[in-house]
């Protein structure tokens, strides 16, 4: 695999799912599986075979870190860059996410026109293929 193609996106807010889908598919030409619940993502992850996990942090029922732990049960998360998306701008929080194994943190509100490029850069860096 030489480029980023498939993204598993977990986000409870429908509006953001829509924006993110347009940003990644229409602007970035990527394939996105959008899940509104962590459990839903865990169920479909293995079958979808993502290249990158994009997880919202604050969600009802199961938050981002819990979802990541759940995903680790069904797929080898260490093979994929994990990107947390959060509305919290606190750098202390961000450090905690990195400690959980995050490759990057995207702060909301994000720029939908550059989100795909941002994720591609993260993916490339994660796979050591960045220039």
């Amino acid at each position: 695999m030489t480029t980023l193609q498939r993204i598993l996106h977990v986000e409870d807010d429908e509006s953001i799912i829509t924006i993110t889908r347009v940003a990644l598919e229409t602007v970035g030409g990527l394939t996105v599986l959008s899940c509104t619940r962590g459990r839903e993502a865990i169920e479909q992850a293995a079958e979808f075979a993502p290249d990158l996990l994009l997880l919202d942090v604050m969600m009802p029922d199961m938050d981002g870190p819990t979802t990541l732990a759940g995903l680790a049960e069904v797929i080898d998360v260490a093979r994929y860059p994990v990107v947390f998306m959060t509305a919290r701008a606190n750098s202390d929080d961000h450090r905690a996410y990195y400690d959980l194994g995050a490759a990057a943190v995207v702060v909301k509100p994000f720029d939908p026109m550059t989100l795909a490029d941002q994720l591609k850069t993260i993916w490339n860096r994660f796979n050591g293929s960045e220039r």
Partner: protein
Amino acid sequence: MHQENGDIDRDEAERLAALASYDILDTPPEAEFDAITRLASQLCGTPIALISLVDEMRQWFKSQQGLSVCQTPRSLAFCAHAIRQREPLVVHDARCDSRFADNPLVVDSPYIRFYAGIPLEMESGHRLGTLCVIDRQPRELEPAQLRSLEDLARLTVSLIEQRRQKREARTRHALLDSLLEALPEGVVACDDRGELSFFNSRARAWHGAGPERLPPEQWSRRFDLFEADGRTPLPLERIPLRRAWAGETVRDQELCIRVPDQPPRFVACNGRAFFDDHGERLGAVVGMHDITQRKRAEREIAETRAHLQAVIDASTEVAIISTDRRGLITLFNPGAERLLGYTADEVVGQLTPLAFHRPDELEQRAAELSRELDRPVYGFDLFVLTPRLGRPENRDWTYVRRDGGQRRVRLVVSVMQDDAGEPIGYLGMALDLSRLYAVEEALRLSEAQFRTAFDTAPQGMALVSLEGAFIEVNRTLCEMWEYEREVLLKTDFQTLTHPDDLAADLTQVGQLISGEIPYYQMPKRYFTRTGRLLCCQLSVSLVRDGQGRPQYFVSQIQDITEQRQLERLKSEFVAVASHELRTPLTSIKGALDLVNGGVIGAVPESVEEMLRVAQRNAERLGQLIDDLLDWEKLAADKLAFDLQRHALRPLLEDALDSNLGYAERFGVVLVLQGDESVAVEVDALRFAQVMANLLSNAIKFSPRGGTVTVRYRRHDAGVCIEVEDHGDGIPEAFRERVFQHFAQAEAGTTRRRGGTGLGLAITKQLVEHMHGCIDFASTLGQGSVFRVWLPAVLRSGERLENGGEARR
């Protein structure tokens, strides 16, 4: 011959003066003299006998027998011839003597024929006149008759001499009497037997008695004599007159005369015995000089002196220095010793006050005085000339202590004068102004302030002993802990402290006492009297005495239970609100970005403009949320800083890169200038935030086509980063509030430029958290420069490229 005449004239003048000195001319007849002339007349058998005194123009008869006139002209006088020689002049028949033949007294009445005159030669050798016998018949005188006549002449001389001595004695006596009576002294005397013989009027007045005949044993009692102490009766052997009579010379013996109903009179006595020419004691005399006034004055002076000395010695807060007329110090009190650090022994008789003054102040005063008096004034006169001219001298000086330390003093100088008004010395009194005002006023103020602050403080306050007992507590603390003051004062802080917080508190108490820390603050939990747990903020400082020994603690205790809860709530609210606001904002902004990015397809131009308005405001809303979050965290001190060493230039390059898009939108060029290898210790993220804020402001306020320059340079121990724009500048009235939160210039600008009003307030706090500071300079119509000063960390071996570089 002339010489001879001159001698004669002089001798005659002396003779006339001698005659006058006997004071006998023109006096009434006296029996003794008449007896002599009668005897002479009988002895010689002549009808006429005279005692004639030859005056300048006449002869005057002190006594005459057989003649009725009392004087005749000198030119006719036989006696005038007789006194020219020591020997008797005998003329047997005047008609046959050429000297007298045509004398009217010969040719006419009384028809003198015979004359025999014996000159009356006095002890002084002057011949004043004669004892003479005269007859109208020529005749001879028997030798025995002549000798008898000579004897009578000697008797006459003796009588005249005695007469004069008596008169002189009377004069002396009268003089002595009036002198003794007029004397301001009392005089007493006794005779050779020791009997009281004389009291002058003063002595009579002082003793209330005269010289009564009394046994000496009774004198003391009769004349009220006491020793100088005024109480002890004077014993016989101490009575001055007895001592003088016994042969002692009495000198200034002081005693007291205490007559009933009169104030005591103190006298000084001098006396001695007096003797006749043969050394026989005639008596003794004592003079008494009244010294009551002097004694009183002496006592008053002694009392005043003792009082003054006590005042001077006790005046440790006032330096009192006296000098003689030339300025040499004569007195230096303990206050002066304390103020100046010299001992009295080191300065009295050794130094003048000039030694304590600063040369520059002396020169300045010399110049002033010299100008004022129009003559050179220097040295000690600088202090005393003004008071000597009768003007007050009250001036502030700087005293230089023995150890070189300086004290500001107010010096008052006065002249000490004798009774005649002549200066005999000077007195200076100096007050230590620094001590007086600074220390006492500060102490008074601080005590008053502390007491007021303590009583009315809205937080709990306590004075706590080193052992932990409460010395004093204020009302707020009693209310907070639900204790009566008296009960609380019997408690110690250990009892009230939550067990888990005690160790930490005691550790810091130890550090405070040892001086490791000047004070401490800690959150601490206390139990109230009813068992409620209170979260408090404790601030403790230690009061030490002048020697630095710990005295007691001043504790301030603030109940922060409620504050804690509020803070937690607020923090949670901000976190939730920020998330809940960002989520819909993400959608709105994302949707707008996508539409405006043309992802959805073309939209009509009129709609596009509206969509851009919406997009800009969505961005602004996002910034507002970020700022609010940052501000809340800074205020709660919850923003973590990861300070690391970074080369400055890459950080600035990143900052410029990040803001390029924003600059392009405003058509502004960004320029970076700096040519030094500089590193700084900052949190890179926060530094980026600082630069973003400054750059976005500069860009926002620049005219289209303008330039924003970021410039950095080393400055002393730090680095200065400047962000300069060429906009309108900051209005004067707004400059003071630039760094205040929610501060923005006038509404028009706000609307045009946008912003939350938190950016610069946050920027300032971020810079300060990174140990820097920020300021600005601004000129209306020309632009502003914001300057961030950061401590520099030099990275050796690293050079940054020179010059500026434009980025678009």
